[in-house]
């Protein structure tokens, strides 16, 4: 089956069942039907001895499979199911056919700086005076290629940064009218195996695997385990499934139709996601244009990570 047909089939299934809702009273209907069948069976069995035993409906142990005592394992099973669906949704080949667009809003005193093989974010410290202050970023990703533009909270553009597996990294720095380029690092695409659990506040989306991007990052967070489905919440008009981490650091909201993330928060940082078709207009967003008159400089290399 071609990937296109597979996608079409999946889309057809989503569309076909998109407005399906459980009818009210289905549980009671099932229960009553089950009881009628039980009673019929009892009468038939009792007829052999000419004795009909009246009595309770033998709902002893009703707190069994659905009782309060079993809610915890049921919730755990549901969480595991949802997490599996999210991991599947973010894995190849499906994710490889979508353009991911995101907008991340940063709290004050955060910086984001481009380097040859990635981006380095920091919090606190010299954030308020740094030329790399990040108010918000707009990002695009498709099949290992990424583009990210960083803006101050005022809307002033700080830098554009793009990385492709074939052409490497290009950055345009608006603070000093410079640009630089660097060769492509080695690594894997976004649909590859999850890189395992990653913790910490420094996130280098490009390092250690070119173009891993948000899908791989989210999968790496889910790989840490300790996530729980915390009910439904409307985000961007969608009745999303909310998934919270036990540490309180990460929360995800996923679309129940696609199981793709709609929003994620990391501490005070919030990222909104959109998953789009790879149209020419959307793919054009992955390219960085160097403005006329900008001066080329050597690409900076990222500092060694500090010990915690």
């Amino acid at each position, binding site marked *: 089956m071609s990937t296109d047909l597979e996608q079409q089939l999946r889309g057809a299934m989503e569309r076909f069942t998109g407005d399906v*809702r459980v009818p009210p009273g289905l549980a009671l209907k099932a229960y009553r039907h089950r009881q009628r069948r039980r009673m019929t069976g009892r009468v038939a069995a009792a007829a052999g001895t000419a004795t009909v035993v009246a009595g309770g409906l033998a709902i002893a142990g009703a707190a069994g499979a659905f009782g309060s005592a079993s809610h915890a394992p049921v919730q755990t*099973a549901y969480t595991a199911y949802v997490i599996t669906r999210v991991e599947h949704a973010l894995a190849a080949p499906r994710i490889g056919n979508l353009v991911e667009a995101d907008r991340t809003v940063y709290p004050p005193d955060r910086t984001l700086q481009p380097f040859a093989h990635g981006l380095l974010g920091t919090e606190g410290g010299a954030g308020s005076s740094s030329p790399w202050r990040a108010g918000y970023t707009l990002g695009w990703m498709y099949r290992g290629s990424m583009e990210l533009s960083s803006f101050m909270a005022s809307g002033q553009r700080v830098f554009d940064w793009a990385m492709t597996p074939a052409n490497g990294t290009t950055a345009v720095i608006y603070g000093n009218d410079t640009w630089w380029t660097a060769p492509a690092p080695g690594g894997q695409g976004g649909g590859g195996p999850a890189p395992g659990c990653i913790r910490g506040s420094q996130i280098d989306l490009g390092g250690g695997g070119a173009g891993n991007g948000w899908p791989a990052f989210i999968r790496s967070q889910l790989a840490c385990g300790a996530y729980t489905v915390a009910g439904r919440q409307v985000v961007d008009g969608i009745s999303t499934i909310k998934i919270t981490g036990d540490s309180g650091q990460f929360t995800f909201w996923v679309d129940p139709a696609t199981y793709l993330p709609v929003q994620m928060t990391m501490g005070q940082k919030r990222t909104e996601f959109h998953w789009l078709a790879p149209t020419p207009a959307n793919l054009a967003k992955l390219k960085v244009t160097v403005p006329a008159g900008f001066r080329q400089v050597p690409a900076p290399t990222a500092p060694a990570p500090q010990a915690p």
Partner: protein
Amino acid sequence: MAHDPAVADLESFLAERGEPLLRTAVLLTGSREAGEDLLQAGLERLLRHRSAIVGDPEGYLRRTLYNLAADGWRRQRAWRLRLPLLQSETALAVEDGTREVDTRDALIRLLVQLPPRQRAVIVARYWEQLSEAETAVVLGCSVGSVKASASRGLQRLRGLSGISTDNDLAEEKTP
């Protein structure tokens, strides 16, 4: 009876997980009504065996849905109901002329024409996105059987899809 704790617990269970289960049931049966009937049948089995289920009633219910569907649950009734429905949908699609929507609708129409087990495998693999091994566990069969059913199902889908396209083209060319 309505205040029985089993009903309240079942309602709570459905409020949390009913929608994805019903969507799967609808895909397994080909219509909303049949999907609701299938889910209700699964719930009845869940009630019947609840004392023996350890930990994960959703897993049990999901397996029950797939197995009932794969075993051709109410097959005759469903097929009788489906036939006029499919014919009317085909007619509407041709009149509407929206090709992309038609393609998707056509895929669903082709899906419900597959034999129950092949359809169950296709839904498990491409809707639930289960692996071949996970699908084998849900359906209680071997991985080889899943592979064979998926291959035949996809081949049929592709074949039926091709026939449909050819027919459409033939109709368009007819003056």
